[in-house]
């Protein structure tokens, strides 16, 4: 199966601290890869280097075989790469519907055509479908800032899918979400994956969430990959238990 994302010898240092230390991995088309590791293991820094938020010190990133190291996040997004952040990142003053339209509008026509074209950039129906898919229909006109934390997490995830991305990187999607909302979120992600065959990379601390969602798991510790395999193998791996699970 083709690799959608290839990361080779990626390294990122901040002064004397090495946050990511020569990490290499591939993400295959249609898989859900989980990345776990204790706090400070370099997961989010790795994401930020892959997604252009940070310039890596060394190494290379390729999307569909094309070198994308150091590319700006907006250009990566237009290549079909989308993400969520560790902390909630919705636009609180915009409605749920406008948040979703915003998430897809830059993929519609040119800047000039967006000025003179339709207010919804032709995304009204797509936004409605996404709202329905993530079961937010009853909140469509509400300001995103007035939603509960869990609802905002769902909206945050929905925004990442709005432009129909090829690769989605989810940074702690389950963080701070209650159990009911968590199972809803996991079920929606699985349904989206089954329907659209999208490729996901998920950073998460919530082990049950990772084990239930991911087809393969990488374990990071101190900026290096210490284990890789199927979720059940990782659960039994003594190195992982020692470094991360602690039991």
């Amino acid at each position, binding site marked *: 199966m083709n690799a959608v994302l290839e990361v080779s010898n990626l390294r990122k240092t901040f002064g004397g601290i090495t946050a990511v230390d020569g990490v290499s991995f591939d993400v295959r088309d249609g898989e859900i890869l989980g990345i776990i590791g204790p706090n400070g293991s370099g997961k989010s820094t790795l994401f930020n280097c892959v*997604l252009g*938020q940070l310039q890596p010190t060394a190494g290379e990133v390729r999307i569909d075989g094309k070198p994308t190291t150091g590319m*700006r*996040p*907006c250009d990566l*997004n*237009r290549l079909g790469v*989308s*993400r969520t*952040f560790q902390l909630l*990142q*919705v*636009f*609180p*003053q*915009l409605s749920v519907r*406008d948040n979703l*339209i*915003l*998430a897809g*509008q*830059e*993929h*519609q026509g040119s*800047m000039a055509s*967006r*000025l*003179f*074209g339709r*207010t919804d*950039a032709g995304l009204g129906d797509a936004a409605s479908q996404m709202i329905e898919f993530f079961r937010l229909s009853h909140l469509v006109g509400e300001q995103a800032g007035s939603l509960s934390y869990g609802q905002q997490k769902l909206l945050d995830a929905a*925004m990442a899918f709005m*432009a129909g991305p090829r690769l989605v990187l989810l940074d702690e999607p389950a963080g701070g979400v209650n159990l009911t909302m968590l199972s809803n979120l996991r079920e929606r992600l699985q349904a989206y994956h089954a329907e659209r065959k999208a490729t996901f990379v998920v950073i998460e601390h919530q082990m049950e969430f990772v084990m239930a969602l991911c087809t393969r798991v990488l374990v990071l510790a101190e900026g290096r990959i210490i284990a890789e395999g199927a979720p059940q193998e990782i659960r039994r791996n003594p190195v992982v238990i020692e470094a991360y699970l602690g039991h």
Partner: protein
Amino acid sequence: MTRAGVIAVVICAVAAIVAPFFLKPFGIFLISTWVVLTIAAIGLNLTLGYAGQISLAQGAFVGIGAYTVALLTPLGVPFFVAFLAAGLLCFAIGWVLGYPALRVQHHYLAFVTLAFTTLVFLVLRNEEWLTNGIYGITGTARPALFGWKTGGARDFYFLCLGMLALLSFATWWMLRSPWGRAFIALRENPIRALSLGLDTRRYTLMAFAIGSSLGGLSGALYAPLVQFIEPNSFALGLSLNLLLMVIVGGSGYFFGPFVGALVAVLLPEWLRVTHGYYLIVYATAIMIMMPFCPSGLLGLAERAGRALAGSRALKKTSMHTEGAGP
């Protein structure tokens, strides 16, 4: 917009059209100043209120626009060509001034734009060969439009009002388009906006350029309105006054600059009845207002409207409950 909002806008528009027929020349001059400065405040509201980029340079752009028209029209350049040139020149300078905003934000950016205002003031004052320095430029001719001469105060007011209507419509069109959503995204969360494919660099520059261009167009009307321009009129005081208009009216509200400019232009005049105390009363009123309604007068009106709607709904519910009781 709600039905009440539409009715309020229509009433205000009608009032703006009939007002000069009931006012003396100084009154017409004041409402003309309101109209002209509203255009500059709309530009600043776009840059600051929607796109979230602080600017203390809007007064300088009004100055650049005013001097462009004052210098070009005596050379035989038709007023409307000079008017467009003022807008285009400020667009270009605003685009360049936007570059620091790509690297610094908030008070750092405020200082960059403050330095620009000082620079423009120094050029206007010191480059006498071009600007006539502190002696200023007098007698910028008021234009004629398809044979309609706007030399009279009332005619020129209607020309300015027409320009305000045109530029407001253009701004409204832009803000209701995906660009408006992108500007708000830039203000609320530029990092997330970038990750969703928004070229935040281009939108930031565009917000600065368009806002500055509106400042220039305002200045292009200001020169023929006041008939005498000199560097001090466009020093930091004007930029701060325009900032006050945006904040007092309601930053990020479409009609905020209209209300803010009305307060900033008319209130000091109304307070003249207090003689030497008017500045003290004006300053105190602003100081009291800011902590209680930081979202400006339109923010206050919105809050009041919501509270009223809430109490009505509560009353309706309690009446319904009482009616359904035993």
